[in-house]
């Protein structure tokens, strides 16, 4: 397992220490704290019925944000359903992420020039699509890559293998991240496969596979950065397995992790909390204080409140909107139905 920083925030692999400025390190810490608060607020807003579908992310901040931080703005992100933080930090307005959660089409209306897709619900579909995006970037001679994410369960899907294999065959600039948070809903990772690691599944596609400490933001950043450089140098795709943990339930739709996880296991992973680790490291370098952290927490809470307000203020969906978004040139039956619903809506 590739690790740069241990649980005490000590650098254990100096050679691999990524070239990040003090400001970068502080920014990473800010984003992780912000995302933890956002996760707490999202769980609570979901319980109040003010958000819909939500897949908790606490525990995976290093894996999600460290990898996104290694990207450039032109890079494409093809996220899974849990990977909302990556596309928000890449540029999707927070209120649109909330609209995605509630089920409003405006949540999927990606701003111009932002290279992200909406979170993918079909586990594995994002992997084959990423091979296509990466091949497209290669053909257009862009200096950018496509990154995608799935979980440990997702690595059992056919599309997971096909996507890696296609990208490998076309030497396409893709990064496949498997966030191994140990459980696919209730099924533990060792029930998915007899393979000792998921990273070794890269062998089947003939591409490099790297297992990374997914609770170590510096390791995730460094591994992603290296994969990106290899891709842009024509070295093809990389598979990254980040070993991490979700502290919360699988989703907010009635999952109860106490039915399949022990508190001992929870405790063990809480010791590896990516925020605690980076905080210790930054404090040792005199780069972080309680005051700074509180400021981030306050900002996060304010911005989340404003984003929920903006989501509330978004006009309600009409059937006519849904019809209009189906095709560029509406077929005759949809023209008829559009007229029918417009008439109903005007009453």
């Amino acid at each position, binding site marked *: 397992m590739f690790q740069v920083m241990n649980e005490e925030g000590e650098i254990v692999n100096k050679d691999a220490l990524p070239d990040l400025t003090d400001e970068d390190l502080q920014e990473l810490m800010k984003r992780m704290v912000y995302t933890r608060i956002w996760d707490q607020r999202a769980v609570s807003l979901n319980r109040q019925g003010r958000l819909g579908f939500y897949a908790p992310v606490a525990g995976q901040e290093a894996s999600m944000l460290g990898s996104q931080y290694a990207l450039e703005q032109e890079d*494409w992100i*093809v996220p899974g359903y849990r990977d909302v933080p990556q596309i928000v930090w890449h540029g999707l307005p927070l209120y649109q992420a909330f609209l995605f959660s509630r089920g409003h*089409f*405006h949540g*999927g*209306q*990606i701003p111009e020039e932002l290279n992200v*897709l*909406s979170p993918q619900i*079909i586990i594995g*579909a994002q*992997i*084959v*699509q*990423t*091979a*296509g*995006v*990466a*091949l*497209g*970037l290669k*053909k*257009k001679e*862009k200096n950018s890559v*496509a990154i995608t994410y799935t979980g440990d369960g997702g690595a059992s899907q*056919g*599309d997971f293998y*096909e*996507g890696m*294999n*296609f990208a490998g*065959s076309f030497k396409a600039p893709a990064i496949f991240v498997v966030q191994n948070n140990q459980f696919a809903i209730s099924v533990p990772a060792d029930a998915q496969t007899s393979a000792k690691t998921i990273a070794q599944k890269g062998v089947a596609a003939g591409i490099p596979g790297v297992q990374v400490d997914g609770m170590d933001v510096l390791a995730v950043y460094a591994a992603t950065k290296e994969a990106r450089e290899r891709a842009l140098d024509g070295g093809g795709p990389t598979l990254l397995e980040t070993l991490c943990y979700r502290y919360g339930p699988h989703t907010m739709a009635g999952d109860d992790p106490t039915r399949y996880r022990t508190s001992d296991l929870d405790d063990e992973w809480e010791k590896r909390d990516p925020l605690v680790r980076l905080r210790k490291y930054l404090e040792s370098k005199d780069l972080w204080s309680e005051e700074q952290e509180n400021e981030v927490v306050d900002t996060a809470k304010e911005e989340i409140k404003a984003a929920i307000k903006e989501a509330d203020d978004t006009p309600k969906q009409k059937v006519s909107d*849904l019809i*209009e*978004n*189906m*095709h*560029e*040139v509406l*077929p*005759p*039956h*949809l023209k008829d139905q559009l007229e029918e619903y417009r008439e109903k809506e005007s009453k």
Partner: protein
Amino acid sequence: MAQMTMIQAITDAMRTELKNDENVLVFGEDVGQYGGVFRATEGLQKEFGEDRVFDTPLAESGISGLSIGLSLTGFRPVMEIQFFGFVFETMDGISGQMSRLRYRSGGHYNAPITVRSPFGGGVKTPELHADSLEGLMAQSPGLRVVIPSSPYDAKGLLISSIRNNDPVIFLEHMKLYRSFREEVPEEEYTVDLDKAEVKREGKDVSIITYGAMVHTSLKAAEELAEDGIEAEVVDLRTISPLDMETVLESVKKTNRAIVVQEAQKQAGIASNVVAEINEHAILHLEAPVLRVTAPDTVFPFAAAEDIWLPDHTNVTEKAKEVVHF
């Protein structure tokens, strides 16, 4: 003008669009140097290069994922599924993904993808090559499904499909690939999507059909004429969406109709046509609208095709049944 088979017309359409638009890419299993298992892409890689016309690994889901990703980066993919019986491997890519891309992004992204694929019985293919699965596609909102029955239509409809900015499933009946030649303009032209065509005019009964059954129905119409029954044959061409304007115009004229498809009775799109006629022209009908279809079994073992596939006598019998109702 040139005399072309349907397969030549299809190749010609792809050549035209590869020339017209540098974003058009043609890919699939064996479509490159080999020129396709039916020679549909013959010569295209040589003419346009490996960057534009290329082979893929053998994985249908990967191919449709590739198409979606390529369209997100500005390309116009023309992907091939070697035989449409293999569509099950990529139902998600087609019905779960590309059909929904425009909608799920509120119009921000689109998938200008053409999925070409051969299908159809009568040539004694092995298992799962010939199945008529267009009904599955017709039930997916966001897709257009096009099935040409002649070389002229095939070229014009394929050019229109490639130029369409939303996904089109373009199904090519294997029996029609080389069964006859027709005058096809060498220059570019289009045939409108979403439009049926009356292939034979008549006043006594409408035969609404598509694919190879167009020719079966035209043959039946000749036989019916000998008995003094003038059948009007409507070729749907696009089977989803249905061009009900043309269908209803015909039915209102003849007051009788049958729908003919090669697919099983529980499959295909015949029941959609019947339902639409019932909703919009019931007062014009002198008889119920009946269907000619295959039986509701799995597609037959090759040696049983002749007793299973609908033929022109099935059509004449059914037409007479509604005429004499």
